[in-house]
């Protein structure tokens, strides 16, 4: 399995170092172009006017909130079932990033909802389930740090991540299953997107930019965790020698 190959930290670090410059460049270019298009090129919407520009930071953040959690769930399964050594690191490195994106999705959504819907918040199925996702991220981070033994913390956090994964399809289909104020999907839906191309392209570019931003940060954080593990090894060797 490819994953086995990269279970070796030194090999992973070599790959990460080789790939990182490309990730950084791609992230900067995509976010730069996306931002420019979002603010200067994309048109105003026929009913939402200029407030539609919030879509270019709200939707990618929401996509990331779910994408990152899905990655954490996959990493948790790899950790619990296959005992992949890097899986725990990938999960704990991802959680704060996912939490940040969920927070942004909620706040930018609120800033968009007030002028468009007439309210900062409503307890409909979509908003409530995303709020629950935010709490799941916080819970994951808390459990990870609560244990002195990183391995035990990671294992408990992995269980929480898998248990909470049921929330992701709930979020996605909440607008179809229940009567929500939040409108149905505009991009990922049967029948194709209901966004005009002039607005869809900036959105997709921003989405890709946000994804590469996450991947770049993830690689940096895993690398950081591996170095931290080495430092802890040095610490314990120093203790043994003392």
């Amino acid at each position, binding site marked *: 399995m490819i994953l086995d190959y990269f279970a070796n930290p030194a090999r992973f670090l070599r790959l990460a170092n080789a790939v990182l410059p490309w990730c950084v460049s791609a992230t900067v270019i995509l976010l730069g172009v996306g931002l420019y298009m979002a603010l200067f090129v994309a*048109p*105003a*919407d*026929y*009913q*939402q*006017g200029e407030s*539609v520009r919030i*879509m270019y930071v709200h939707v990618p953040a929401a996509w990331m909130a779910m994408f990152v959690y899905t990655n954490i769930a996959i990493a948790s*399964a790899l950790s*619990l*079932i*296959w*005992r992949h050594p890097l899986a725990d690191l990938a999960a704990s490195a991802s959680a704060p990033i996912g939490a940040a994106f969920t927070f942004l999705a909620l706040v930018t959504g609120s800033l968009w909802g007030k*002028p*468009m*819907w*007439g*309210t900062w918040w*409503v*307890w409909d*199925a979509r908003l409530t389930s995303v709020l629950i996702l935010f709490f799941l991220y916080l819970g994951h981070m808390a459990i990870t740090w609560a244990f002195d033994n990183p391995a035990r913390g990671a294992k408990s956090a992995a269980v929480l991540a*898998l*248990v909470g*994964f*049921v929330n992701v399809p*709930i979020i996605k289909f909440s607008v179809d299953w*229940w*009567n929500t*104020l939040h*409108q*149905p*999907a*505009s991009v990922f*839906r049967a*029948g*194709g*997107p*209901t*966004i*005009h191309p*002039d*607005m*869809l392209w900036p959105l997709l570019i921003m989405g890709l930019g946000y994804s590469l931003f996450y991947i770049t940060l993830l690689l940096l954080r895993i690398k950081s965790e591996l170095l931290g593990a080495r430092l802890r090894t040095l610490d314990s060797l120093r203790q043994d020698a003392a």
Partner: protein
Amino acid sequence: MTRKRRRLYMVGGGMLILATATALILTAFSDNIVLFCSPTDIQNKATCAKADIRLGGLVEEESLDRGADGVTVSFRVTDLSNSIPVTYKGILPDLFREGQGVVTEGTVNAEGVFVAREVLAKHDENYIPKEVSDALKASGNWHEETKDAKDY
């Protein structure tokens, strides 16, 4: 069975149980967190007669009446089968328009009028550039009910 396979089954089984439990809980709750009623529901269901429900539908065309005092508005909400009169004291959201979606919270009074304490506009999932819609309206090709961003 190998330990790995046993772990796999445990995790899979646990998630399946959890998903089932969640589905059951959500079904039980879905009607309890602020009951949602359409105009047809209000006519037919006794549960919609209770206090503080959510009424959703479309604002009926040519039903909007801004009262003399400048604050009270009245309009009708329809689900294309039935409609119900609504009265509201307050500012309507920017996106509130006849023929568009609306979600309001309040209670049906003794005369069968829905007294709303909150009126929220609901918009659809279509995103169309203003220039495109302007051009279509000018050429007479703008179809409000069946507009579909994919076609433009």
